[in-house]
């Protein structure tokens, strides 16, 4: 286990902070997409409040697709992935650690930014609390499931767009439950059932995704 943490986790954090500029880009993309909606739809506070949760979640999914590709592509292209496979560390462990580090680096800033997004879209406090809960439970799910598709497309040259085609259908249940949770929070209705479902999906992904990712990496490595 120590090898995993020292060898993979610290390395990914070090690499991420070497390229600070790339850390900021998905977050700025998210901010800009959210800014488009008041300009495109209407700045009226009531409209924004109604479409708010959906806008934030759709923007989060799109921005995650952008930064997801970076998960294995660099290691695949420079040969580090081969060295991981021959290092004796379980590949599923490597995959799990890489996904968690990727979640920390690209989704934590999203959680930090969410109050600003909630302010832009005029969400009430209860809606914001529900939004944060769904984001905390939902974004790791995005990372885990996304990493499987990234593992499969890492060998292809232009995997970016194909990744979106693969993942968007898979993210739809998460989008539905997350936005319905925030909407019922707006109406002061309990939303624990939606959170429970998202939590269940997360646990399922956390348990099975690393093995699927390891397998997909072996397939694209072969």
């Amino acid at each position, binding site marked *: 286990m120590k090898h995993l943490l020292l060898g993979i986790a610290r390395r990914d954090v070090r690499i991420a902070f070497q390229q*600070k*500029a790339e850390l*900021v*880009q998905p977050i*700025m993309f998210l*901010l*800009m997409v959210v*800014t488009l909606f*008041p*300009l495109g739809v*209407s*700045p*009226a*506070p009531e*409209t924004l409040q109604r479409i708010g949760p959906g806008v934030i979640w759709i923007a989060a999914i799109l921005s995650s697709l952008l930064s997801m590709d970076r998960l294995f592509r660099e290691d695949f292209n420079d040969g580090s992935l081969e060295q991981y496979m021959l290092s004796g560390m379980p590949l599923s462990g490597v995959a799990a650690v890489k996904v968690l580090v990727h979640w920390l680096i690209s989704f934590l800033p999203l959680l930090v930014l969410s109050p600003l997004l909630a*302010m*832009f879209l*005029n969400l009430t406090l209860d809606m914001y609390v529900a939004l944060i809960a769904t984001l905390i439970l939902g974004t790791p799910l995005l990372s885990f499931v996304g990493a499987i598709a990234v593992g499969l497309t890492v060998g292809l040259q232009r995997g970016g767009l194909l990744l979106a085609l693969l993942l968007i259908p898979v993210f739809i249940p998460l989008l539905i439950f997350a936005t319905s949770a925030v909407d019922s929070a707006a109406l002061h209705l309990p939303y624990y059932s939606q959170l429970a479902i998202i939590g269940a999906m997360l646990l399922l992904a956390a348990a099975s995704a690393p093995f699927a990712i390891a397998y997909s990496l072996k397939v694209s490595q072969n």
Partner: protein
Amino acid sequence: MWKWLHPYAKTENAYQLCLTLQPWLWGCALVCLIVGTVWGLAFAPQDYQQGDSFRIIYIHVPSAILSMSTYIAMAVAALVGMVWQWRTAYMAMIAMAPVGAVMTFIALFTGAAWGKPMWGAWWVWDARLTSELILLFLYIGVIALYGAFEDKQQGGKAAGIMALVGVVNIPIIHYSVEWWNTLHQGATISKFDSPSIAPEMLWPLLINLAGFAFFIAAVTTVRLRSEIVLREMHRPWVKRLADESGVA
């Protein structure tokens, strides 16, 4: 034309120029800012409508004006760099970008803080605040583009073109957002017309404006010097400078 400026194209002279200008700029900036702020906060009369909350104007208006003018200055530096092939101009542009972004952020924050007592919400999609936010995105675009390049020379040129594209778009964005705002006039409650400026209110504003301008110039000279040191790393005068500075 402009021959007397040409020697400053050589980066060492530009470095020395920054060094000599810097203390004066810091001096003027501090004096103007202190006088302007104190005068605005304590001695300027209240606004008959908004009471004392209007005093935020003494930061919001100067930073809003200067955020726009810094971007224009950036574009001018880019144009000069492009037309006369001055590397120093590109470096000045890159030095200015973060300062302009900070000014835009200040304008946004103070605008939101000023709007809260009036409209009850921290953020309203008001025409001026929205175009200010888009200006912040333009700044971030230029800074991110420059950061993405490994070869700083190339990065400077690319960011320069982006700055020029941005400056052409600023009026377009401004008027389209104004039009968008009138289109949805009913929707938002933003009567954000600045209060009628009585002369004794105006003076501290102008002083603060000068103070902010000197501040921007001073920080830009500091950042320009650091950019020059980075870009001319292998020049003997930079090596001598680094040894003298004793930053071992």
